[in-house]
């Protein structure tokens, strides 16, 4: 049974890769050349999906001011991965559990003490991260730890790629189907509640979506750098457009583009792929910061100079 399921998964992944390669081969040879190897094709597909879904969710992260929460969840995933490894369970499961527990713990501290949310987050995620480091230092080599922390997209195998694809499909369909509810919840939770929406479900649903996205991104950019993919594409798009659907579409595109460019550069220059991807997305942000039509500093400066004193 599991074997058939696995085979079907592999077949689907291969199909998607084949479709992707049709497009890649349209690119000039110098760009498409590294992707002739199977492991590079898997890496490219993973990076595209991760970049896209992180970019999509980054709009919510920016607008809901959840950057620190994203940081917290991503760090809190580490002990889950370690414990799952110990118990010989799928690492996805462990990561999900500790990620969810940490975000619940943050809420408990916030509600029952006078400590504000930023401190509650900092406190919980560093504790969880410390637990993860301690467990991993006992059971695994430092290479393993490096791969979890900083990603190893070139080593992505079929199970991880399937997981990433499934999460990507879930994230995109959830955002498409519940666009209205999520938009209203992020913009005005009080109004959402007064219109009869279940804001608790929306709140935890969005956190859960973030958590599974982070877990699925582990292998590509790693725990530490996934936060960048959950913030920077959204922040860049936020400077460029003034409509939520366009912001989300643009953030998704920026995430995917950064993933592809970063991956190619990392192969060409022989540097860490996670770091390369994040540097590329940051340079997108820098360009928007300087040259965005309405919010960019250069044009704002020019406009102010043009104004009569």
């Amino acid at each position, binding site marked *: 049974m599991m074997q058939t399921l696995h085979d079907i998964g592999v077949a689907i992944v291969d199909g998607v890769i084949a479709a992707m390669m049709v497009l890649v081969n349209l690119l000039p040879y110098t760009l498409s050349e590294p992707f002739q190897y199977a492991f590079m094709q898997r890496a490219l597909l993973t990076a595209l999906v991760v970049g896209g879904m992180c970019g999509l969710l980054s709009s919510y992260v920016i*607008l809901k001011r959840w950057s620190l929460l994203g940081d917290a969840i991503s760090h809190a995933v580490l002990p889950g991965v370690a414990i799952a490894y110990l118990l010989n369970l799928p690492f996805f499961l462990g990561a999900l559990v500790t990620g969810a527990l940490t975000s619940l713990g943050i809420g408990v501290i916030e509600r029952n003490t006078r400590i504000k949310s930023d401190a509650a987050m900092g406190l919980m995620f560093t504790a969880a991260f410390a637990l993860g480091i301690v467990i991993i230092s006992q059971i695994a080599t430092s290479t393993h730890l490096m791969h979890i922390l900083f990603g190893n997209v070139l080593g992505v195998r079929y199970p991880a790629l399937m997981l990433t694809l499934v999460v990507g499909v879930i994230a995109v369909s959830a955002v*498409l*189907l*519940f*666009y*209205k*509810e999520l*938009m*209203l919840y992020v*913009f*005005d939770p*009080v*109004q959402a*509640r*007064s*219109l*009869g*929406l279940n804001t608790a479900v929306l709140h935890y649903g969005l956190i859960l979506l973030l958590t599974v996205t982070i877990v699925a991104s582990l292998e590509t950019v790693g725990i530490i750098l996934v936060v960048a993919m959950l913030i920077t594409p959204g922040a860049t798009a*936020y400077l460029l*457009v*003034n*409509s*939520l*659907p*366009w*912001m989300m579409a643009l953030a998704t595109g920026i995430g995917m583009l950064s993933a592809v460019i970063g991956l190619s550069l990392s192969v060409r220059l022989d540097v860490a792929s996670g770091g390369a991807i994040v540097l590329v997305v940051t340079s997108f942000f820098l360009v928007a910061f300087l040259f965005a039509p309405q919010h960019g500093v250069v044009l704002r400066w020019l406009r102010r100079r043009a104004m009569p004193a």
Partner: protein
Amino acid sequence: MINRSRPSADSGNSAVSICDLTVAYDREPVLAGVDLELPAGRLITVLGPNGAGKSTLLRVLAGTLKPLRGEIRVYGNTIEDERRLSRIAYMPQQEQLDWDFPLSVRDVVLSGRYGHIRREGGWRRFLPPSLIRGEHQAAVRRALQDTDMLGRQYQSIDSLSGGQRKRVLLARALVQEASLLLLDEPLAGVDNASEELIMRVLRQARDQGRTVLMVTHDVIGARKSADHVVLINRQVVGQGPPDALLSDDMLARVATINWIKPRAEEHPVSIRTGATETVIAS
């Protein structure tokens, strides 16, 4: 002169009937043992000093804040039921919102219909806003027209003035076509033109048979335009027609004697006793 009668079981003519409502943040009660009957189809103003629990009362009625104790009926039903039928609309204070949000005026107003769209059920509830059907679009158009925001419907909300923001929030409340409109400080910080427009819209809603309940600091405005006034300071201090309740003499007494009372009063009931005595003594 002042109607201080206890709420009765019969709520035939009242839009809202509140019995023994107590609300507390942490330990301190913001509203303590409030009994209140509000007539249907009127323009009602709730007046009170800062921290009197005016906004709290509205948020309880909007169903976004759970009371510690007490029973509330809106048109004879529970708040949950009325809300499920989209018959209560709530307009918050604009400071609660992030106006840098990448939405247009139209997006915000259309979001007021999300309750209706959900209730329709079926696959249509999953459609993106741009594909939402004609009747909702027509309601949006009417609300934008009434609030004089139709010309700015595609404008992004971060470029609006204070008065325009109020009008957008008002349009979002109107578009729900609710029978009870709850408005938190709809006139705070708006210029005369916007104020006139907002009051005209609210009177129009009242004339269509809706109940309009607004919270304000503005005694003079309330005296001019409300059908019914409720004075509140953690308790109902008094209620009645504005001419009678808001006479200069009465206001002076309420302002000096009751509203300055410290909030950390041990037994809130004593405030009411004091108020009643003062009122009777006058």
